[in-house]
């Protein structure tokens, strides 16, 4: 077990050492963070100059909107990040030969697959949580400044919590679980290639083709219901449902929870796909000859 934990730590260090990871972190967070800072500054300045400005509750609404956008955009760009990083971490290491050194240490092959998946998922979750945390921090700062005696004005009572704790936790868990299937999907593709670019290219084409079909299926289903049935087997359908604005908004407003059938069913199917992809990836990796 300590060996497995060391392996996971090692994989995390490797993910963090990649420029791609920082670019992703930046790309994901820069827009919501800048927009929220601007909103906060305008709010505080207007208040500070005694111009009245907009209400605290308006700021809450704006930041909340940014939060929803952050979650949806995250689900939109994460496949590109995963394809590149998993391509690098499995296909790239096989091509460059460092996978050979890893497999000359007494770690089990399945542990290598799982450690790589855990490392990339932890990074992904930290990246999305960073944005969420920053947006919440924005509201805390606004609230604290508004309440300070120096700013002398009446505070409209409004919730300072961007997201209720339970809703935040549920969104976090939902993001994590829905990304498992994607990670598994890319891990399977990474078994067939020693070139990270080729692996990312082919797997993204397959993923996009699947998603295009899912989007077309409702129209095609008018012609023949079987088109719709095939779309039910595309795992991207479950993932888009889980990361849709309706789902995120629903959980934020506490109309939905993980146990609501609209969330639970696609989640269950997504987890089924994740289990399938991981099993295939581990099976393939156990038999993979390391020739470089």
């Amino acid at each position, binding site marked *: 077990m*300590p*060996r497995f934990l*060391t*392996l996971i730590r*090692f994989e995390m*260090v*490797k993910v963090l*050492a990649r420029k791609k990871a920082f670019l992703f972190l930046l790309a994901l967070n820069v827009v919501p963070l800048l927009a929220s800072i601007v909103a906060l500054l305008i709010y505080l300045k207007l208040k500070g100059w005694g111009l009245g400005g907009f209400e605290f509750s308006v700021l809450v609404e704006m930041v909340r909107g940014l939060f929803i956008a952050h979650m949806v955009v995250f689900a939109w760009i994460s496949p590109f990040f995963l394809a590149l990083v998993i391509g690098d971490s499995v296909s790239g290491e096989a091509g*460059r*030969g*460092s996978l*050979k*050194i*890893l*497999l*000359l*240490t*007494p*770690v*089990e092959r399945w542990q290598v697959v799982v450690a790589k998946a855990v490392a990339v998922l932890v990074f992904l979750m930290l990246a999305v949580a960073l944005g969420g945390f920053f947006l919440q921090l924005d509201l805390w700062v606004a609230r604290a400044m508004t309440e300070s005696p120096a700013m002398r004005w009446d505070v409209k009572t409004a919730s300072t919590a961007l997201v209720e704790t339970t809703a935040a936790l549920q969104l976090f868990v939902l993001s994590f679980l829905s990304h498992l299937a994607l990670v598994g999907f890319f891990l399977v593709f990474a078994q067939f290639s020693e070139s990270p670019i080729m692996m990312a290219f082919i797997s993204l084409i397959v993923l996009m083709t699947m998603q295009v079909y899912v989007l077309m299926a409702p129209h095609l289903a008018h012609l023949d219901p079987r088109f719709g049935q095939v779309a039910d087997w595309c795992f991207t359908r479950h993932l888009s449902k889980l990361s849709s604005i309706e789902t995120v908004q629903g959980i934020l407003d506490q109309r939905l929870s993980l146990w609501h059938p609209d969330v639970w069913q696609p989640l269950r199917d997504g987890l089924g796909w994740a289990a399938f992809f991981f099993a295939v990836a581990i099976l393939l990796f156990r*038999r993979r*000859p*390391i*020739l*470089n």
Partner: protein
Amino acid sequence: MTRSEGSTAPLAGGALPSASRAGVPSPAIVVRDLRKRFGRREALAGLQFSVPEGAVAGFLGPNGAGKTTTLRLLLGLAPADAGEMEILGVGMPAHRTAVLEQVGALVEKPSFLDHFSGFDNLWWFGSLNRPVTRERVMEVLARTGLAEAAGQAFGTYSTGMKQRLGVAYAILHRPRLLILDEPTNGMDPQGRVQMRDLLREIHAAEGATIFLSSHLLDEVQRLCDYVVIVDHGRTVREGYVADILQRGRETWEVRVADGQAERAAALLPSLPGVLACRPGPRGFEISLEPGRSGLVNQALIGAGLTVTALIPKEASLEETFLALTDNGGDPA
């Protein structure tokens, strides 16, 4: 998958009931009927050999003979099509992790992480076996002459430095068995001597068995006491170097007085005990049955020739190697 999966022999003992012979150290590596195909090409065609524990063994063969493939299969990097392998008394690849805990290995070029320093590479990869200390990492870096480059990124190392780091990694955990694929590849002559000394030192101090493939036959001869020679995926010869070299023939250089070369050339091949005669740089090189040099000298003098010198040439592994492998011109 190999047939060795059922093996449950203990790793610590190292004793192999099936392969132990009286008076002979128990084997550190046993390979039986190992087969591997890559598409149509048969890389290994029933390879067998064993390496006694405590030996420094050389693994020789021409290009494409199957050396690196054998090492890959032995270390569980690729599956064999058929055959049995045992390392330190237990079956591979069934007990892969237990074996790898006790084996230090370098297969082909060492390809650590380019953007990590030499130290970080050793520390991280080494920690995956068992915890290592900073001191131990620095110690092996110093022993392989890399102490000054410890903080430098692996990607900036020269070929020789990369090779040294590969060896440093292999010896990090004081393994019972070292498997090294061309460990001095890309090193300068000084580096080669240092590496040879290092391996000797490790063998003497820690009693590790060393199994190394090399294309430098004189290096193998200087370092190894045991050799396995393979060609076309089969073992053509294995045994202690002393046994292999003594068997068969001696080589001598014969020099005669000026103007007598033609007569000597005519006479030498017909003398009893002379197996081969070829012109050398300053006379003739003859292969003899052991112990016949005095008789040859007498016969030449008896025929009226003036023998100016009769020089024994050290038996070399190269000759044995060339005789045993048919693509002898290129022993790499």
